[in-house]
């Protein structure tokens, strides 16, 4: 059997591989196993996005299900030459934005998250990098974490989303803009506004 050509560089990881295109076609024909395999490279990222945005394991799990069920149902509209990651993140972003807007409307705050090892922690607790750190430092870190959460809560859902995708997911502003149906410039303005709000809210700590 002839070997399939493999991506030549690290950067080609962003592109659409032949195997991925085949999985898309199979999934479009209703092959759920192909769909599950297709999303495996991205579903951790989607769950991480939801968890960091919503800071609630339960909500993140719901977003995960809704994102991938929506994706499965609308696979027929996916063009094979498009980027599956961008497409999935676009759906996930919309689902997350709906959650954030509903939450904002209800003035609800989430209750828990998971630390680096996946252990549930109170929302406002940032995992300590070094458990042996001295108590004063631990306390200071917790205060800082509380302030960060408050500052982030002051962002609009859209600002929060752009910030999250750029800061924690490393997506370029051009990609984020495309995902959100906006220009790169609009995404840049949104990120700028978000960082300015954060700086302003945390000015006394800096």
């Amino acid at each position, binding site marked *: 059997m002839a070997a399939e050509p493999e991506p030549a560089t690290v950067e080609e990881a962003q592109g659409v591989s032949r195997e991925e295109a085949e999985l898309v076609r199979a999934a479009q024909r209703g092959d759920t196993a192909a769909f599950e395999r297709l999303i495996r490279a991205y579903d951790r990222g989607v769950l991480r996005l939801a968890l960091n945005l919503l800071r609630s394991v339960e909500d993140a799990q719901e977003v995960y299900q809704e994102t991938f069920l929506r994706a499965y149902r609308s696979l027929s509209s996916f063009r094979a030459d498009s980027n599956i990651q961008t497409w999935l993140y676009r759906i996930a972003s919309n689902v997350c934005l709906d959650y954030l807007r509903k939450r904002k409307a209800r003035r609800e705050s989430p209750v828990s998250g998971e*630390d680096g090892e996946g252990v549930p922690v109170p929302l406002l607790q940032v995992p300590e990098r070094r458990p042996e750190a001295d108590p004063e430092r631990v306390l200071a870190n917790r205060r800082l974490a509380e302030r960060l959460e408050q500052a982030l809560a002051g962002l609009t859902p859209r600002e929060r989303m752009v910030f999250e995708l750029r800061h924690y997911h490393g997506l370029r502003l051009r990609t984020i803009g495309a995902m959100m149906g906006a220009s790169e410039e609009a995404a840049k303005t949104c990120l700028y506004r978000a960082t300015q709000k954060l700086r302003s809210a945390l000015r006394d700590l800096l």
Partner: protein
Amino acid sequence: MNCEGTRDLLPLYLYGELTFEQEEALHRHLEQCPACSSEFEKARALHEALDQRRLEPAPETLAACRRELHRRLAAERRPFAWRFTFARPAAWALRLASATALAALGFVVGRWTAPTVDPGLPGVPAAALATAIRFIEQDPDGQVRIGIEERRQRVLRGRLADPAIQQWLLAAARDAADPALRLDSVELLRARAEEQSVRRALLEAVEQDPNPGVRLKALEALKPFASDPAVRVALARVLRSDENPGVRIQAIDLLVQQRRRDELVGLLQEVIHREENNYIRLRCRQALEELNASVGTF
């Protein structure tokens, strides 16, 4: 560039979102303006503080999500069959029947229809029967069809080079529910990693297996192929996104073995900026120094 313009650009600078000309102008201004340099340090401190609040989903959470999605997708796959059964009172009764009733139905169906149903079915305990039923449909002529998954153990024996054995091992490495089975498969496949199909399975395990032990084992198997472009692409992804520091350490150790400047510099600069693990940051720094590259990301 004046102070106000510089400060406006600092956040975008930290995200590497400025044009070359803007960066140059900003560098020039920072070099000669202590006040703006101080502002830059504050902006960087905020950036780093925000890095610390990142949450990672637990592997168990991801695994639970995948299981639930698998269940929901299976339900999506047969919408016609379920709609059909909802539309008929007899089928409603069917759906609501207890496992015991299903057993009885299986018995009846087994007697009335072609022998596609195991004649020994009535003797199967109700609970076990319920878990073995995969679909229930009614044909337009009123016949009921029940799909039952039969499980029988078979023992296959052969050499590792035997294609049939290899296919089973590949399937087990990808899909076995038990991580110990996936681990055993990966361990055995290691000896055949020069074959493309095996290497692809190992790469999938490295990137997608929910169990870090399996991912580490697959990384070990790929060690001799650290110069393979596909392996390096996977290693870069692992280094960027695997939640387990042990796996990321293994990935960076393999990546920096080959000093490919054009490929590594950007990646290492990106990782050093957001990595929480001290060893990995140190390894990035050392590798960048060996490559005569700057540690900064801009």
